[in-house]
Structure formats: structure tokens, C-alpha cells
């Protein structure tokens, strides 16, 4: 017979403690606006 074991929830990234002053990297895209957004 097959039994289903309970598994603890996966840790959520945003709950991982960040070092003080940690700045998440900018999203790869879209890039910065050179003139203005139309």
C-alpha cells in the first residue's frame, strides 16, 4: 500500500533573513528609461 507522508512547507524566500543593507538586484528587464515614458 502507498502512504503519503506529511512534508513541511517549503521555506518562502522572502522569509529568509536578509543581511542588513541587502539591495535586491534590479529586474533584468525592462531597462531604464533614457528619455521619458510615453
Amino acid at each position, binding site marked *: 500500500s502507498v502512504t503519503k507522508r506529511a512534508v513541511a512547507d517549503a521555506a518562502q524566500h522572502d522569509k529568509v533573513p536578509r543581511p542588513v543593507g541587502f539591495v535586491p538586484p534590479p529586474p*533584468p528587464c*525592462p*531597462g531604464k528609461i*533614457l528619455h*521619458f515614458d*510615453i
Partner: protein
Amino acid sequence: VPAAPPAPLGCDDPESVAAAEVAVNYINGHSHHGYKFALNIIKDIHVVHQGPNNDLIFLELDLLETRCPILSPTPLENCTVRSFAEHAVEGDCDVKLQKVDGTLSVLASKCHSHADSSEDIRKVCPGCALLASLNNTEVLETVSAALNDYNSKTTDSYLRLLEIGRAKIQYHPVHSVVTEFAVGATNCSAEEAKANAGACQLLPEDQSNFGFCTAVMVKHPSQDLQVDCQLYGHQVPAPHTPLLSWRQDTS
């Protein structure tokens, strides 16, 4: 354990910016109408490895129209991007490039350009003139009157209309039509054209035979017409003019 795939290229990475620059130069170099476009945003980049030192790069770019006509010899970096209040025009471009041994080349490009919405302009600048259709009657009348006026006063080559680049109509506080149009020099002087303009042929397609004019016609409360043309190169030298002097700017 296989090596992890390289991190995706960011849109602001130097490699992306270099590819975008090649793409924008290609787009401007292969366009024959309107104005030069400058990069505004690298919206997306996708790299497909073809093999060692061989990548395909797919770019999605947002460009903005500059004030430089496409035939202008002015380098792109010296071309001013039209401001928002000038009723800016945006270009959405998809470009496919290949990078072999570090050398980038454009394989294909597709662009759509569109003017900013009039509502957006009115929100920010209620009194600003808005872009008008290039076949608007008032626009056509203004271009025709302006070119006739210029040809009637110039002592140089008779100019012929190539295309209308841009037109704006303002109604308040002054009813005015502002137009920009490309012109080409012909094999007649303006004086000769008075006799038979139909016989005047455009000079061979050379950048120096092209020019660009701006004209403002005020219709109300008073009538006024101002036209200014700048030719990019030599003129048809009038017989009595020594060769050296015709290089002077005609504007």
C-alpha cells in the same frame, strides 16, 4: 552535474546596450522616410546560443522620434528627441541580431511607430498644438504656399517637395499650422522654373541634394507665413556665382 546555464542578460547590461545601439543605427540607416529615432527603453532581450561564439539576440526596443530628418547628415547623438509636449512619436521595434566572434549584425527588424495619444498631451499641456494628418487640407495648403514662397525668393536651385514629415495645427490662442517637409534640389534655378517648372527634374539621389523646410502659417487673428529651408549640401551654382561661394548656408 552539468554547469548551470548563464544568467539571463539584463536589459541594462553593457552587452545589451551595445546590441541596441547596433539595432538603432541599422533601423535609421534603412529608413528613407520621416525622422531619425533614438533609443528610449530596452524592453526585453533574449539570447539563443547557436554554438561557440555564436548567439542569436532578440531585442524589443522602445524608440523616440528625434528632430533630425532621416536624410540629415547630423549624427544621431546630436539629434534632440522630441519632447512630450511636442506630441512625441514612439517606435516599437523587434530586432533580431547575430553575434559571431563578438561582431554584431542585424538579421531582421520590424518597427511600428505611433504618436502619443492626444488625450495624454492635453492632460499635461491643454494649449499645445497636436499632430495633424499629413493629408489635412490646411497642412497641404501651408506646405504648398511655403514652398512657392521660398522658390519665389531664392536665387538658388528650384526646390521640389519630397514628403511632408510632420504637421501640427493649433487653434487657440492663435490659429496656426506648423509643418516640416523634405525637399529636393532640381536641375533648374528658381528663375528658370518660373518659365516652366514642369521641366525641372530632381537631381540624382545624393544627400547633398536634399534639404528640409519648416513653415509656420498663422491664419488668425492675422495672416502670416514664415518658411525656412536648410539644404544639406551643394546648390546648383548660378552661372555668375563663383564656385566657392555657393557652399554658403541658404537658411
